[in-house]
Each structure stands twice: as C-alpha cells, then as structure tokens.
C-alpha cells in the first residue's frame, strides 16, 4: 500500500503495523514518536494498529536544538 511518510510518498506491506514499518525502516521503538493522520500512536499499540492505504505518517526523534 501507499503511505505518505514524513511528507513523502512511500510504500509498505499491506496490513503492516507501525512496529513493522519501524522495523522495515530500521528504526528503534524508543526515542521516536509516531503520528498517524495527525493522531499520536501510543507505543503500546505499535504492534496492533494496522496502517491503511494513504495514511499520512510522521516519525520524529530528538535532534540538537536551542
């Protein structure tokens, strides 16, 4: 299916969960936050929530800033 990840079009396995997506991206479960269609996804639901075609996903982490 198609996703918009951090503003850019990408694709993921159908019925992929957030956990699967993070794994596919090689990202850790900790230290990041995930927003699905403007809704924050709690870490506890990473393995249960399934993404849908056309979802807008934001994955963020901490970087240096003042």
């Amino acid at each position: 299916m198609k996703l918009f990840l951090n503003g850019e079009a990408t694709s993921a396995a159908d019925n992929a969960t957030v956990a699967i997506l993070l794994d596919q991206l090689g990202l850790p479960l900790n230290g990041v936050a995930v927003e699905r269609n403007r809704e924050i996804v709690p870490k506890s639901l990473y393995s249960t929530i399934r993404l849908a075609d056309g979802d807008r996903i934001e994955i963020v982490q901490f970087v240096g800033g003042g």
Partner: protein
Amino acid sequence: MPDTEASGSDKLIIAGKAYTSRLIVGTGKYASYAQNAEAAEAAGAEIVTVALRRVNVADKGSERLVDHVDPKRFTYLPNTAGCYTANDAVRTLRLAREAGGWNLVKLEVLADQKTLYPEMEETLVAAKALIKDGFDVMVYCSDDPVYARKLEDAGCCAIMPLGSLIGSGLGIQNPVNIRLIVEQSKVPVIVDAGVGTASDATIAMELGVDGVLMNTAIAAAKDPVRMARAMKHAVIAGRESYLAGRMPKKRYADPSSPLAGLI
C-alpha cells in the same frame, strides 16, 4: 569545595525537582554532537534543550544526539523552536512527550523568522492547553512583566524572558523589566536568549534571576568548550554576587587602608 557548599544550600527547583546547576544549554549549532557533549559537560549543565524533527529515513547512518548526550545524565528539555502557532507548539510537545516520556517542556511560539520574538497571545493560549494536558511548562516569553504574570497565573513552572533576540548576543537589553519580573514571580525566572559573553550571564544573575539558558553564546564562540566553562563560572559568580549583596556605589573615592599610624 566552596562551589558545592554554596550550591548545596542553594538549589534551583523546577516543577518540584532540584538542580544544582543554574545554567541550561542548548544543543544546536555545534560542529558535532561530540563537541556538543563536551561543551554541555564543561558547562556543568544538568538540563539541555533539544528539538524534535522528522527522522531522516534516507540516511539511517546519521549520528543521533542521544548517542552523545545521554538522556539519563542530562534532563532533555524538548522545545518548540520553529513553531509559529499555538497548535504547532502543542502538537510538537505531545509528540515529544511520546518520544521521550517526559512532562517537562520548553514552550516557545515565535512571531516571525527575522526576530524570533515571542508571539505572546499564542504563547499564552498554548501554555494553558499544555498545562491542562498535564505538561510542566517552562515558557520563553518577552520581558513584558504583565504577560509574565499571566503565564505564571496560568500555571507555568518557569518564566523565561529573553535578554535580547535569539542568537543576537546583545546581552540583557532591559534590566528594569527583568528586575520587575524577578520581584513579582514565585516560580523560577530564567533569562532565555540574548547572552553573548560571560559577563552577560553574570549581569543577568546579579539581577536576581534563578538561571540562564543559552545556546549560540557557547556554540558560536571560537572555542565552544572553553566558553562553556566560562559560562559555568559566570553563572555561579552572578548568583553568589546577588546573594552576597553588592557594595553601594560612591561618587568619590574611599580609601581601603587605614589613615591612622602613617609614618
């Protein structure tokens, strides 16, 4: 050691947690995260501000802040730099809480890119929303003592007026307003932005503020690590000086040696 003795009896309390250091440093603009970590170390900081940004999916190999500045050793203070509306700021800090699991945040809602001056109406709206949502809000604000009071009344846990524009290094432009804010506030007052050199930090602390937050003054110095050390001492100097109580100024001279017993 005098310092520890001093600080031992003089802690900075933010949202119920006690800190020994009164110097909060940013983590932006450094040559590398390694230098960044060394500077935070030299500054003796216990709190560092951090930004939240999209992960770089393309370049997974890129260095990560957490690998250099250990969140277990330094309190991460997520900021909302780059947010120009209350909504963006609130959204950003909710993500930050999810990412890090911390309630303590630095709220800043900016008015425009040229001045990065705080947008006080939006800042107050965002502060109320965040506090309602259970955040401990340290708020970047103008030096308007009236708005400072509103932010404190709204429940902010620290009032952080600018000394001068972010990254300008112009020092404390309006000591009178900072003094008025200090006199009226029951929560910590921390000068955020404007410090350019060590004496600026000392002057800020001598006004009675509880701490100083800076980034560019250290990161943009020729030798950032050495400047970080300078700032550590500058903040202690200003704090001790404020607590010691300065001598009165005189229009004329006053000898330091006895007049009696001259040969």
